[in-house]
């Protein structure tokens, strides 16, 4: 009963802040609303009994990626709205493309039969112990491969960022 109220609150918060990301005039407000969206989604993870996922979500997205976004927006000082107004045809094309994407998404989820594999309120899969066992036992190779992928991306970024010749 109580969790239902929290669910409604979080959903409204997530949707509202997601809309505000697009509706805000200042880029910095958009970034902050996006952060708020991430917090609302982290709250949903807690409701699904996946505390580990929730905390990692906050650490990675709100704590690292969004701070980087905030940095960029602040240092470029995008606050002054100097963007030139876009021509009409760009707006029309953007509207049509966005509408088509939405139609596709609606089409997918209308036909998709949502099955609950386990009851989300009692499942223990999101707890760190079970998740760790699955990641490091059943899915060890994909897990390690993805970490190598991230390492490659990191080395690549450092290489591109270096000014002098190597």
């Amino acid at each position: 009963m109580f969790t239902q109220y929290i669910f409604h609150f979080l959903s409204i918060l997530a949707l509202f802040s997601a809309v505000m990301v697009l509706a805000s005039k200042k880029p910095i407000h958009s970034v902050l609303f996006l952060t708020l969206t991430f917090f609302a989604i982290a709250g949903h993870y807690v409701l699904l009994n996946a505390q580990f996922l929730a905390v990692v979500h906050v650490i990675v997205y709100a704590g690292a990626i969004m701070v980087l976004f905030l940095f960029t927006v602040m240092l470029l000082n995008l606050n002054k709205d100097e963007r030139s107004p876009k021509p009409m045809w760009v707006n029309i094309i953007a509207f049509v493309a966005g509408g088509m994407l939405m139609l596709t998404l609606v089409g997918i989820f209308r036909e998709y039969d949502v099955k609950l594999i386990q009851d989300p309120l009692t499942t223990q899969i999101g707890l760190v112990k079970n998740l760790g066992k699955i990641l490091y036992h059943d899915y060890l190779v994909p897990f390690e491969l993805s970490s190598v992928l991230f390492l490659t991306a990191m080395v690549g970024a450092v290489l591109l960022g270096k000014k002098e010749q190597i």
Partner: protein
Amino acid sequence: MIRYIIYKTILSSFILVLSLVVAMYSTLIERKVAGWFQDRHGPNRTGPWGLLQPFADGAKLFFKEEFMPISADKFLYILGPSLTMFIALLTSAVIPWGPDLSIHGVASPLQVADVNIGILYIFAILSIGVYGIMIGGWASNNKYALLGAVRASSQMISYELAMSLSIITIVMMTGSLSMREIVAQQQGFHWNIFFQPLGFLIFLICAFAETNRSPFDLPECETELVGGYHTEYSSMKLGFYLFAEYINMFISGAVMATLFLGGYHFPGLDKLGLSPNVFAFVSFMVLFTKITFFGFIYMWIRWTLPRFRYDQLMKLGWKNLIPLAILNVVITGIVILLNQ
């Protein structure tokens, strides 16, 4: 259910009031310690031994003129200090303050939330701690404030890495992310500091950087940046920023005592045969003493060491602390593997 809610409400309000009172009196103790180090008296005019000084300071801050730069982003300007204060108060929820109380025969833990990912929760709070400073510094629309905010956030992000790496060894040793479990395993004199001295040292240094305390107080470096990220703040908004720093000091002391100094455990204390409630109280006082010890170290270092230069700060974090922390993780892994 009702009983549970009432108990948790009382407990969390108690911890809230405790953090605020401790932070208030830390300001007085800090000035007394500074006086002692510089061979003078420190504040002693307000009440006996200056005991009413924090109240006088608070009243002064409340009645100061409220100033807001005309070009500031109004909402974010107010959000900055509020967020800093809010985030500073969040961490105390997962710290176990003592062994279980016994109220009407029901064991009631002295911990607001026993989440099984307590350590990660603390890291999540740490990583969002940047927001208050960044938002405040940017919203002031002032060069010095922006520079201070950028410095603060890059410093906090850099030292977060070494801090997390130094904690991983504790997690490897205990095999749990729950604060309660970590304290339980340090019972008696099995304190983690004896097994992880290097990890403790790295954590201590990073804690100084994370709380923006000297010698890492570059974000508010007066000699270069006027006042850093809070240059444009006055009245109680400035008070919130300064106050949050003292709360952070208290909480980081509590985290360090919990993770490395055995939390509320003291050798021989559980063999005295005290009744559960007295035992809980004495254990809480033990933890409190350890936190006070860390508070003194914070002040001791502030009044004896000069400030780092910015490039020295970054060099220390990235080139010394992080490799050392990784080495510590590898050594701990090898030792655990050999002992299996």
